[in-house]
C-alpha cells in the first residue's frame, strides 16, 4: 500500500487518514497554501502553516484550523507530518509525510527563486516526490525577479510620461504582495482592487509589515488615480470597474506571459513573465535535490514532464488532480 494514494477527493494518506489539499470535503485536510485550487471549504479539520491560517480564515470562513511552524513534527496516527517552505506564496508549504522510515513529499505549488517574501524553497529529501509541473516545458525559463521588477518599473514610468495609469493585473494572494514592494519604491501612490485589499488587510492584521496601499472606492476621485498604479486581480480585467482609470495601460504579471500569443490574446498592453511557480530548470533542480526514487507529476504539463524525467532515468508517473483550475485556467495568474 503506498503511503499516499491518489483518490477522487485528493491526495490521501490511509495510515494517517488525512488528505492533502482535497478538492472535496473530508474529515482531516492538510493544506499546502491558501490558493483556491488547493484550499477548499467544507472539511472538518484543517492543518496548515501559521502564516496560512489567517488567509484560510479569510477565504474559507469558520472552520477548525490548526497550524504548525516550519519543520515542526505533527503526529497523526503514527504518521509524522511536517511543513517545509515551498517559496510559492506567503505560508506555502511542501508537506513531508513519514511512516515506517518511508518519506513522501507533496510539493504543493513551489518556486525555487527566493522572492524575499514567501520564504526560500527548502529541498526535502524523500523516497517519493509529488511535484507540480505548471510550467514543465523548457520554453519556460524565467528572468531573474530583479530584472522583471526593473521592466515593470520602466513600464510604469513610461505610462506616467504618457499620462496613463498603470493597471497591473496580479493574483490577489501572492503576486500582488510580491510586486507591491518594488512598486512602492517608486514613490507613487498604489491603489488596489477590493480583493487585493482584503488579502492585504488580513496580512497586516496578522503582523506583516507591508507597504501602504489605498483601496479603489466608488468615490475615489479620478485625478488621484491618473498616472499612478493600480493592482487588480485577473477577474477585474476588462470589466467596467476599469473605466475609472482611463486612460490606462494594462500589464499582466504571469508566467503565461512568456508566450507572446497569450499576451496578445488577452488584449493587454504589456506582459511580464513573473511567476510564483518554478520554471523548467527550477522543477528539474527541485526534483533532483529530493533524491527521490519515484516522482509523480501533477498540476500542469505532467505528461511531458514525467516523460522527460523517465528519459533522464528518474522513474516518474503523471497524476491527474483538480489543482490549477482557478489560478491557471484563466492563464493569467500562474
Amino acid at each position, binding site marked *: 500500500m503506498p503511503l499516499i494514494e491518489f483518490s477522487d477527493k485528493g491526495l490521501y494518506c490511509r495510515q494517517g487518514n488525512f488528505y492533502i489539499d482535497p478538492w472535496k470535503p473530508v474529515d482531516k485536510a492538510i493544506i499546502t497554501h491558501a490558493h483556491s485550487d488547493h484550499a477548499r471549504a467544507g472539511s472538518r479539520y484543517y492543518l496548515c502553516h501559521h502564516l496560512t491560517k489567517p488567509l484560510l480564515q479569510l477565504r474559507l470562513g469558520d472552520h477548525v484550523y490548526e497550524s504548525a511552524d516550519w519543520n515542526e513534527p505533527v503526529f497523526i496516527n503514527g504518521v509524522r507530518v511536517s511543513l517545509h517552505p515551498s517559496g510559492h506564496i506567503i505560508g506555502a508549504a511542501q508537506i513531508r509525510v513519514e511512516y515506517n522510515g518511508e518519506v513522501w513529499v507533496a510539493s504543493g505549488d513551489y518556486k525555487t527563486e527566493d522572492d524575499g517574501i514567501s520564504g526560500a524553497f527548502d529541498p526535502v529529501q524523500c523516497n517519493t516526490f509529488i511535484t507540480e509541473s505548471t510550467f514543465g516545458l523548457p520554453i519556460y525559463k524565467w528572468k531573474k525577479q530583479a530584472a522583471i521588477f526593473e521592466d515593470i518599473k520602466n513600464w510604469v514610468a513610461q505610462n506616467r510620461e504618457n499620462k496613463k495609469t498603470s493597471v497591473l493585473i496580479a493574483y490577489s494572494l501572492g503576486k500582488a504582495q510580491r510586486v507591491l514592494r518594488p512598486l512602492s519604491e517608486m514613490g507613487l501612490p498604489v491603489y488596489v482592487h477590493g480583493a487585493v485589499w482584503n488579502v492585504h488587510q488580513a496580512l497586516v492584521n496578522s503582523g506583516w509589515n507591508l507597504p501602504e496601499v489605498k483601496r479603489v472606492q466608488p468615490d475615489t476621485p479620478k485625478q488621484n488615480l491618473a498616472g499612478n498604479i493600480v493592482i487588480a486581480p485577473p477577474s477585474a480585467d476588462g470589466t467596467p470597474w476599469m473605466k475609472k482609470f482611463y486612460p490606462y495601460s494594462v500589464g499582466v504579471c504571469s508566467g503565461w506571459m512568456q508566450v*507572446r500569443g497569450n499576451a496578445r490574446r488577452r488584449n493587454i*498592453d504589456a506582459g511580464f513573465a513573473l511567476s510564483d511557480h518554478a520554471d523548467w530548470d527550477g522543477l528539474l533542480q527541485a526534483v533532483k535535490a529530493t533524491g527521490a526514487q519515484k516522482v509523480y507529476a501533477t498540476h500542469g504539463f505532467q505528461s511531458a514532464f514525467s516523460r522527460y524525467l523517465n528519459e533522464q532515468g528518474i522513474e516518474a508517473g503523471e497524476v491527474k488532480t483538480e489543482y490549477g483550475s482557478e489560478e491557471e485556467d484563466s492563464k493569467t495568474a500562474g
Partner: protein
Amino acid sequence: MKQFATLVNILGTSTKTNDKLQALQDYFAVAADKDKIWVIAIFSGRRPKRIINSTILQSWCIEIIGITQWLFDECYHTVGDLAETISLLLPEPETPTDGYRIGVAPEHTLSYYLETFIRIEKEDEAVKKQFITESWEQMDRNEKFVFNKLITGGFRIGVSQTMMVNALAKTVHAPSSVIAHRISGNWNPATASFEYLLSESVAATDFSKPYPFYLAYAVNEDLEKLGAENEWQAEWKWDGIRGQIIKRNSDFFVWSRGEELMTEKFPEYNNFKDQLPEGTVIDGEIISLAAPAEEGIFKPLPFAALQTRIGRKNITKKQLTEAPVGFIAYDLLEFNGEDIRYKSMAERRQLLEQVIAQTNYPSLHISPIIAFDTWESLGTVRTRSRDMSSEGIMIKRKNSPYQSGRKRGDWWKWKIDPLTIDAVMIYAQKGHGRRSNLYTDYTFAVKDGDRLVSFTKAYSGLTDKEFAQVDAFVKRNSIEKFGPVRTVKPELVFEIAFEGIAASNRHKSGVALRFPRMSRWRQDKKADEINTLDDLKELLKNYNLPLAPEGK
C-alpha cells in the same frame, strides 16, 4: 537589432493604434538610415526571402540544446509559432551585471543581418548554419524571435502599410499620400538610401510608381444617412484583383493593390500600351472575362481562373485562351502626365470615358454606372449582384477627390449578404499564433438522414469569450483524439456564413464554400434542427458561384 526587436515587441503587444504609431515614430527618430530603409521594406511587403526552411532551423535548435524531438514538438504545439519556440528554447547570452557582453563582438544592426541574408542566400547550408548559430549566441530572446521570423520569411506583425506610412510622414514632415507614393513601386532596400527614397526627385524619375489605392469602407442597410441620391454614383463591385495600369514615358506597368508589379503576367494588356495616351494612370479591376460577345457586354469568369494566372511564372497559350484577362476601369488618376486625383470624381469619370473611348481593345472596359433613383431601388438592383458575378455595389460620392488608403465618407462598398447554413460542430483543433492554446478551428457538418456529413471548416467569427466557452466544451466533450484533432459530441450549432458555393469532388459533401465563418452561435438550436445536405445542394443549384482560394 535590439532597437528593432523592441519595436516589434511593442507593435506585437500593443492594442492601440496610437501606441503603435508612436512606437514607429520613436523608431524612425533614432534608428540608423540603413535600418530605416529595411523597416520600410519589411512593412511594405518587401520582406527578404526565406533563407532556410523551418525544418532545418528546428533541427539546429534541437542540436544546440540537446532535447528530443517530441519535447520540441510539445513546446512548439504550446507556443504555436516556430520562430518564437526556438527563441524561447535557446539559451540566453551571458550578461554581466554592468550590461556589457564581454568577449562578444558589438551588437549587429538590422541591416547587417538582412544584407548578410541576401549575401548567403545561395551559399551552402554549412555557411548558413554557421552564420545563424553564431548570431543566436549573441542575441537575447526578443532579438532571436525577430531574427528567426526574418530568416523563415514569416514576418507578420500587426502593422499595416498605411500605419507605417503615417509614422514615416510624421518623421519626415511630409503628407502621408506623398510618402505612400514614394515608397511604392520598384526599389531595392539593399541599394536604396533613405534620402534617395524620400527625396522629391524620386517620383519624377521612377515612372513605374503607382498611386496609393483609395479603399472603401463597408456600409450596411442604413443608406439614407448618405443623403441625396443624386450626389452619388453606383457601380458593381467586381471580384478580381484591384490594380493600376500605368502608361508613362512610353513604358507600361501593371500594379496590384498588394503593390506587386504584375506587368509580365498579363500579356493581354500589351496592346493597351500602344493605345493609351502618354501619362495615363487608370485604377480598376484585373479580372478574367469570357471572350467578348457583344459590344460593352462582359462576363467575369470565376476568380479561380484568374488565380491560375497569378500563381505561374510563365503563362501558357492554354491559359491565355482558357482564362483571358481583361481590365475594368474605375477611375482615372493621371491624365496627360498630370496627377488629377484632386479633381472631383465626376470630372475624372468624364476624362476616363474619353480615354477609354480612344482605345478599341476588346478587354478594356469601363465600369458601367448603375442608374438608380432611390436608395430603395438601388437595394433591389443589389439583389441581382450574384447574377452579375459581382460582390455587391460600390457607392461613390460624385464630388469626391481620389484619396489614399482606407477612408470613410466618400466611397462605400455595399456587399451582398452572405449565404448561411446552420451546422453542428463535429471536430475541433487548436488554433495558431494567439490562439495556440485554445480549440478554435472547427469542422462542421450538416444532416443527411441520420448521418452527419462534414462540409466545411471555419475559424473565425466568434468573440474571444465565445471561443473560450467552446474551447471548454471541446475539452469536456471529446469523444476521440486523432493527432491534434478531437472528435467532439455533435451538440453545438452554429450559423455558417459564406460568400459563395461551388461543386467540389475533394469534399465528401460535394461542395466547397468561399470565405466560410461562424456568423452566429445558435445556442437556441439543437443538433437535430440543423440544415441538411439537400439544403446545401439546393444552394449549390441556385448560387453556383466562382470560387476563390481563401485569403485572397
